[in-house]
């Protein structure tokens, strides 16, 4: 039994805090009635996921998670919510109950099946190597082994920028 007041205990406790942040943020994001609160829950969930990435030995990806998701994606979604602010209409009772019960049923079924699979499988694990300056290796392999995919990703981003500009502009010229 590891005590809370050792280094490992504190690390485990902070890990538990990150897990709670992630799951509660996801629950807030899907269950709250106003969209702004869902986006705030999404940001909370992403901060928790960034903490999990830190525990998985890659602080660079954790930093990028906070930078891209919390800093860019959530702010963009908040902009869209404010531009197209429309209170979520009160749903009709029967359809809502049907959809909620169906989604809860299928969700718990999928959770049960996948968790059973995960816990019963003997995963092949290697001895985890200590990460030595993983940013350097990441950059090298991004520009050598995965160079083609890197360029394709930049093309995708360019197409996305141009496409979103065209979509938003064409809607404006019609009205």
């Amino acid at each position, binding site marked *: 039994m590891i005590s809370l007041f050792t280094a490992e205990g504190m690390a485990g406790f902070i890990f538990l805090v990150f*897990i709670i942040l*992630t799951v509660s943020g996801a629950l807030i994001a899907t269950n709250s009635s106003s969209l702004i609160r869902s986006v705030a829950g999404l940001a909370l969930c992403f901060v928790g996921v960034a903490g999990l990435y830190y525990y998985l030995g890659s602080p660079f990806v954790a930093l990028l998670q906070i930078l891209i998701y919390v800093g860019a994606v959530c702010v963009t979604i908040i902009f869209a919510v404010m531009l197209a602010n*429309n209170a979520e209409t009160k749903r009709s009772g029967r359809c809502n109950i049907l959809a909620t019960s169906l989604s*809860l049923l299928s969700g718990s079924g999928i959770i049960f099946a996948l968790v059973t699979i995960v816990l019963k499988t003997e995963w092949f694990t290697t001895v985890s190597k200590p990460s030595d300056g993983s940013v350097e290796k990441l950059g090298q392999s991004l520009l050598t082994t995965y160079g083609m995919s890197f360029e394709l990703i930049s093309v995708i981003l360019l197409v*996305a920028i141009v496409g979103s500009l065209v979509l*938003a502009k064409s809607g404006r010229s*019609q009205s």
Partner: protein
Amino acid sequence: MSVFSLSNNLDTYLVIGILLFVIGLYGMINRKTFIGMLISAELILSGASINFMAFNHFSAPDPVVGQVFTLFIMAIAAAETAIVLSIIIAVYRNYKSINTDSVADLEG
């Protein structure tokens, strides 16, 4: 195994990834607005990223592959968000609503 040593276990991360995925699926079915469905899609993508990072840390011979894959998932998710939001704005201009029920003119 103590509660505080959960962070050295592969199963923990896999279960968290499953939880995020299924919560996103639940939101995808249950939400009635486009932005809510977009938020659920982001949750599903981050569940997949957690799976990649967990297998990368615990059982990959080269511990860079999963990180590269997660970075690519982030870039594609950002592009997807930009396009989906501009589609939402265009739909809102035409229909004055972002509910999925009111955009049903194309049937037939």
